[in-house]
């Protein structure tokens, strides 16, 4: 066990029963019908060669050229729930991103991962780890620790971010740095104590709290390679390591598609197949990694971490003149791992229009008198999976109970 954990200076995430979340965001707008939402024989046009298959009761489509898709469903389908027919109510990337992660079009919102992290009752070293991808944390930026997609935090902690710079500088001796650190802490605490009401006091309180984490973070940086995340799987491994150590509650990583070629396939629909194959290969690896790590309750970490896979929008059902598909306001989402009712499919799409059907939130079945799903239903479900009260933040949008185990 790392020495600094023995210090007992900080709480460990997971020990309180608070759920933890790893977000994988597929930026650009995926086409669910190319993998997780079979729509063959409907108004939806797809790449040729897709065949229907199923595993653990979850239907999907794939081809022989996408072996990782079948392997994922077979290995992880019993821990997977898919929600179909979520309407973003926009077809603009910026707005859909904000909607899918905050439930609102309004600027200044807080995304699901930062809100859950800020809700923790524990004094975590890294409440939310933002490694890559979108981030909306207007009120919770003090809870968000940005690692940087290129491992920037690691280079800050070991000092190479400075010593590798264009101007030759030497860092101070450990003793000198420690003396300065101590004085800075004292000045921040004194300033915070006199900060008073309102923003001044809040800002200085947050500064003092952040400063109080730096020593632990530097120690952590010496033990753990935070720079290894060259792709979303590697970045997720960093998040998993931090979760295993009980240091963080939520994390965000971005998957920009196979070879970074973007999910926004206006002109190259076959890319969606490559993207999904790589995504599923990565998700299998992430789950295997979580399975191999030990959770706070003694079982595998995968029993304590929910993986949430989102994209900001879906794609128009018809192939355009450039061989791609344009934006569509309806999309799907995946929940995987802890607390998830495996083998579950919620909702669906109208085969004549590729619009979302209304659903019974409790059973997940199609229900004309049920609920038309919007991103806030996903948010409420995320809160519920994390053990937070969804009604407090989203009183008008109940969670999708069918996704939640038990």
């Amino acid at each position, binding site marked *: 066990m790392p020495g600094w954990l023995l210090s007992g200076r900080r709480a460990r995430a997971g020990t309180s029963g608070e759920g933890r979340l790893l977000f994988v965001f597929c930026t650009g707008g995926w086409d669910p019908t190319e993998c997780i939402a079979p729509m063959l024989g409907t*108004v939806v046009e797809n790449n040729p060669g897709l065949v229907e298959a199923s595993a653990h009761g979850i239907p999907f489509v794939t081809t022989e050229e996408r072996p990782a898709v079948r392997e994922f469903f077979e290995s992880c389908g019993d821990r997977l729930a898919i929600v179909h027919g979520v309407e973003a109510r*926009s077809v*603009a990337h910026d*707005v859909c991103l904000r909607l899918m992660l905050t439930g609102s079009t309004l600027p*200044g919102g807080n995304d699901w991962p930062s809100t859950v992290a800020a809700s923790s009752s524990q004094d975590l070293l890294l409440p939310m780890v933002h490694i890559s991808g*979108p*981030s*909306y*944390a207007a009120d919770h*930026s*003090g809870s*968000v620790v*940005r*690692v*940087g*997609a290129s491992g*920037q*935090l690691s280079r*800050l*902690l070991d*000092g190479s*971010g*400075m010593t590798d*710079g*264009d*101007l030759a*500088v*030497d*860092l101070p*001796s450990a*003793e*000198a740095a420690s*003396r*300065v*650190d101590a004085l*800075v802490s004292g000045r921040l605490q004194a*300033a915070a104590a*006199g*900060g008073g*009401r*309102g*923003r*001044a006091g809040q*800002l*200085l309180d*947050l500064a003092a709290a*952040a400063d109080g984490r*730096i020593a632990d*973070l530097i120690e952590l940086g010496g033990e753990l390679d935070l720079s290894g995340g060259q792709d979303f799987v590697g970045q997720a491994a960093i998040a998993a390591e931090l979760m295993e150590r009980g240091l963080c509650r939520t994390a965000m990583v*971005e998957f920009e598609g196979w070879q970074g070629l973007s999910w926004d396939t*206006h*002109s190259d629909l076959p890319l969606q197949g490559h993207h999904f194959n790589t995504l599923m290969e990565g998700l299998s690896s992430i789950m295997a990694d979580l399975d191999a790590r030990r959770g706070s309750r003694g079982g595998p970490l995968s029993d304590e971490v929910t993986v949430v896979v989102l994209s900001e929008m879906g794609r*128009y059902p*018809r192939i*355009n003149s450039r061989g791609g598909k344009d934006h569509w306001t309806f999309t799907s989402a995946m929940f995987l791992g802890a607390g998830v009712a495996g083998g579950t499919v919620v909702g669906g799409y*109208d085969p*004549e*229009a*590729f*619009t979302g059907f209304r659903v019974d939130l409790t059973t997940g079945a199609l229900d004309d008198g049920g609920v038309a799903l919007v991103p806030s239903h996903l948010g409420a479900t995320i809160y519920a999976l994390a053990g937070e009260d969804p009604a407090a933040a989203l009183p008008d949008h109940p969670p999708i109970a069918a996704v939640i185990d038990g």
Partner: protein
Amino acid sequence: MLALIATLLALHGCGPAPVGDSGTARATDSGPGAVADPVTIPLDDLALLRRRSLDLTGLPPEPDQVAAVLEDPDAIEAIIEDMLRSPRWRLRFADMMAEQFLTRVDSFNATVESYGLDPSQEYRFESSVGTEPLLLMATIASADRPWTDVVTVDWTVADDMLLEIWPLQEISLEEAGLSDAPAEGWRPARYTDGRPAGGLIMTNGLWWRYWSAPANYNRGRAAALARLLLCEDFLLRPISFDASSLLDTDSLLDATSSEPACVGCHNSLDPLAAAFYGFWWFDIYAEPEMTRYHPEREWLGAYYLGTSPEYFGTPLNGPVELGPAVADDPRFLRCTTRRVAGGLLHREITDADQSQVSAWLDAFRDADLRVGGLVRAVLASEEYRAGALLDTASEDDEVAIQTLRMMSPDQLADSVEALTGFRWTEDGFDQLGNDDLGYRILAGGVDGVAVTRPQRDPSVSQQVVLRLLAQGAADFVVTSDLALPAEERRLLTGVDGDTTSADPAFVDQLETLHLRFHGRPATDDALAEETALFDAVAAADGTAAAWAAVIALLIRDPAFWTY
């Protein structure tokens, strides 16, 4: 100078705490801190000078400015006028707009390699492209010209790189109506590819950031214009429609003119989009397409969108009329007012601020649309000057009124460079100005794509960036600045390598450093702490390391990076 300042401080009875002596006014009709009952305590003179200096120049005040205010608090008004005429105001205005226009991104569809430039020029390329529209706005704002020029002038601004790679020709300052260059290395220039006049809305920099996919038919650009210049955001309107009728291309196109949920936006958006076909790229990643404006394609809007260019119902006789149409739109000035006020107040200006915005807009108009008039009005507002809250402040006031602000990455980088000479770069990348390898969003900034709102609160990432920046800048001072003859030094002007804490010059130097970094005199406790730090580090690592420790402490002190 030091002795004078010390005398003035003694006479002024100026304490270190940013606390004033009279209450300010409270909003009773709308918006926090607008008018009526007191809810805030204003900053004292020195704290207010420092806030205004950082907001107008991005830098802490100079010692002579501190001295002037101590001698005569009313001197601050003349100092503000000097600041508004300084080149720093131009750069600061561009930085402030960068947080809202989001044009400084880490990549564009064309790259440095597209132009055959050396890869080491990547940062400069991206920075120059993203800065073009911002610096054009800043040049107009600081040149005492009416703001409407921003969308009507027939020139832009460019540096050597843009002049080399884009169809631009430098023009004289006189021809542009300027008295000095937009910024070091930048000058006025005119596109030579036949694009019409239109200032900002005819710049490559703006439309490289807000480009349009083929299937988007320039609607993205039209929506960006409305959002950025009019504060009308089409994209914030939720839509709900019967999608079953939209499953073929013809019906989808028809829907924009027939489906009620679509028509609401598209009857304005599409004719506006039709005005942008000179910027239409058949290949969205092709440098030749992106580089030039295409006058011969202006007619394509009618072909693709089935409508002639219009500006919210008013027909446009070509894109040449787009800029004047924006200039005549009252939303343009109101939106500018909101953006400038939001930048200075460090918060989102909302509909709740309507009455205050109207008052600032009046000041803007009274100044014949000179941005300086608007800025002066905001700087004079009770909310801007607030340093603390009274008990009468509401919960909304607690959230909204920024009684203390955190430096942005731009302000931090510029201030540290101005004081120490140190700029944090790696392989030519400004490390507080990029996110590919740098630390911009870790320090609280925006990357323009995934992180689009500046961070107003400290975080552990921001504190770690600050710590390393302070260490690097402090070492740079003692290894470069201290090595120079005293009269050539930037910072440690009063001491030598063998000065000890027992020398009178030591305390003088410390006090000067406090004035430089924090804009106010040191307390006795602070001086004692710093002396003890100096002695301890000097004993272990030598005098140079001791000065580095002191300087690092001053940079990390909240009195430096907050204001």
